[in-house]
């Protein structure tokens, strides 16, 4: 009887161990899988050519990713520029100023924002943001825009990354010892001075990590951007231009990719690039956050 229990214990332990190791290695498996499938195109083109060529003509066998990479950078950049001030001010408000009552009401709403599917963001972008840019913002600058633009993508993405940045940076603010604020307040500093000179300063690495996490989420976000950014394979030159970010490229061409030689390989290479960029940012941000957590304990 007892030996049976012990056997069960040990057997389960083995199985759980294997599952743990496998899921720990999943990210490597993904990278290897994508790399395997990108090899055909890497065999004939140099990575440099692929990354820095602007010529995208799959039928002629030309796969230059530059327009898409630039599109991604632009859209992400706009999103981050919009999101940073709003998110920082909000998370400072929620963690330093707001009463518990306000905090308890706001948090689930921000969680809800995080739970909304990206297609819904896309629909909203098409219905609200795109017409807004076409009818009001573009005329303001005396130009024409269809509305499907970097700015539209950036606005929608900004809203999508609000919850991440707010969540992570609030957590970082919370980890700043209360006594540190007390020290500053007891010297007669106002709350804002305390936030500005002490809390923000202490929290800076963590806040940057929060922004980087938001940035990498924006960089990889697909459906919403696909729906509002316009998808024109040209290096953009203004925020009112359309753009064709990398994830949108991958998602938009799943139909054709098996009928054109090397097309699937090119798209999977694009996914690999996306994965690499996102991993890079995520690893850095997470390492910083772990350091922050340790420095508190």
């Amino acid at each position, binding site marked *: 009887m007892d030996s049976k229990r012990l056997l069960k214990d040990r057997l389960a332990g083995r199985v759980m161990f294997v599952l743990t190791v496998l899921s720990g290695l999943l990210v490597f498996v993904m990278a290897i899988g994508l790399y395997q499938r990108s090899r055909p195109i890497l065999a004939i083109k140099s990575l440099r050519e692929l990354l820095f060529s602007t010529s995208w003509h799959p039928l002629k066998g030309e796969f230059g990713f530059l327009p898409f990479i630039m599109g991604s950078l632009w859209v992400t950049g706009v999103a981050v520029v919009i999101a940073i001030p709003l998110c920082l001010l909000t998370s400072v408000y929620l963690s330093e100023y707001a009463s518990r009552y306000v905090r308890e009401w706001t948090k689930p709403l921000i969680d809800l924002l995080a739970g909304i599917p990206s297609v819904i963001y896309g629909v909203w972008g098409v219905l609200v943001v795109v017409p807004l840019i076409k009818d009001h913002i573009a005329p303001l600058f005396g130009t024409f825009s269809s509305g499907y633009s970097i700015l539209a993508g950036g606005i929608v993405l900004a809203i999508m990354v609000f919850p991440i940045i707010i969540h992570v940076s609030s957590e970082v603010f919370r980890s700043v010892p209360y006594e540190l604020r007390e020290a*500053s307040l007891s*010297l*007669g500093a106002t709350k804002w001075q305390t936030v500005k*000179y002490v809390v923000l300063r202490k929290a800076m690495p963590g806040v940057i990590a929060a922004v980087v996490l938001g940035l990498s989420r924006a960089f990889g976000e697909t459906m919403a951007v696909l729906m509002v950014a316009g998808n024109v394979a040209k290096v953009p030159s203004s925020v009112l231009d359309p753009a064709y970010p990398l994830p949108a490229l991958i998602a938009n061409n799943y139909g054709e990719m098996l009928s054109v030689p090397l097309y699937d390989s090119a798209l999977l290479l694009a996914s690999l690039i996306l994965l690499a960029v996102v991993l890079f940012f995520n690893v850095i941000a997470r390492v910083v956050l772990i350091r922050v957590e340790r420095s508190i304990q």
Partner: protein
Amino acid sequence: MEFKTHISVRNLNVFYGDQQALKDITIDIPDKGIIVIIGPSGCGKTTLLKSFNRLIDSTDGVRVSGEVLVDGENIFDPKVEVTRIRKKMGLLSQNPYPLPMSIYDNVAYGPRIHGQKNKKELGRIVEHYLRESGLWEEVKDRLRSPASRLSVGQQQRLCLARGLAVEPEIILADEPTSALDPKSSRHIEESFLRLKERYTTIVVTHILRQAKRLADYVIFLYLGELIEHGPAEEIFENPREEMTREYMKGIIS
């Protein structure tokens, strides 16, 4: 004995949620000298100390009734500008918390936020108060290095200098030596004794011997109630209340 008072407390009650941390405290805190608040842990010593400069405000779910008069002004009056009250009092907490900046900037922080921009003047202030807290000789060559690199004992003296630099009239100290080694503790105690002619120093401690070394005046709290207060000799030699006597003998702690 006649006392002029900076701080007088009138019927102060403090609640955290449903729990009452302070029960109807009324006391005039004498001016100058070292006032020691003693009592077993969890009896409201820290709460009383922090209500003097309204740091308890920022605790969630705290309710306060009664008055704390500082120079005749009720600081719990909503119209009062709280930063002005706090500037009158320097705080020394249990663990030293240097601000995340250099040694120099830590001391200059207070004067700066109160509008002192003159570099020369700031330099003078920093040196003066670092001398006052007995740290100058140890740090004068590395004023620009981060304060976090100092030893814990040095950090606590830095915090003292930082507090003094806003020119308070009162020093509030919440078990200021509990995180320190004996030598650093002695440094801090010596500073208090040196400063007591010029400042009203209020020290919370649960170390009876420390209280005896420092106190000019003693306040004894037990479970949120003010049991007894008076000049040090009186309380230590000849307490009126049974409870105080038991505490002194170590029966309740």
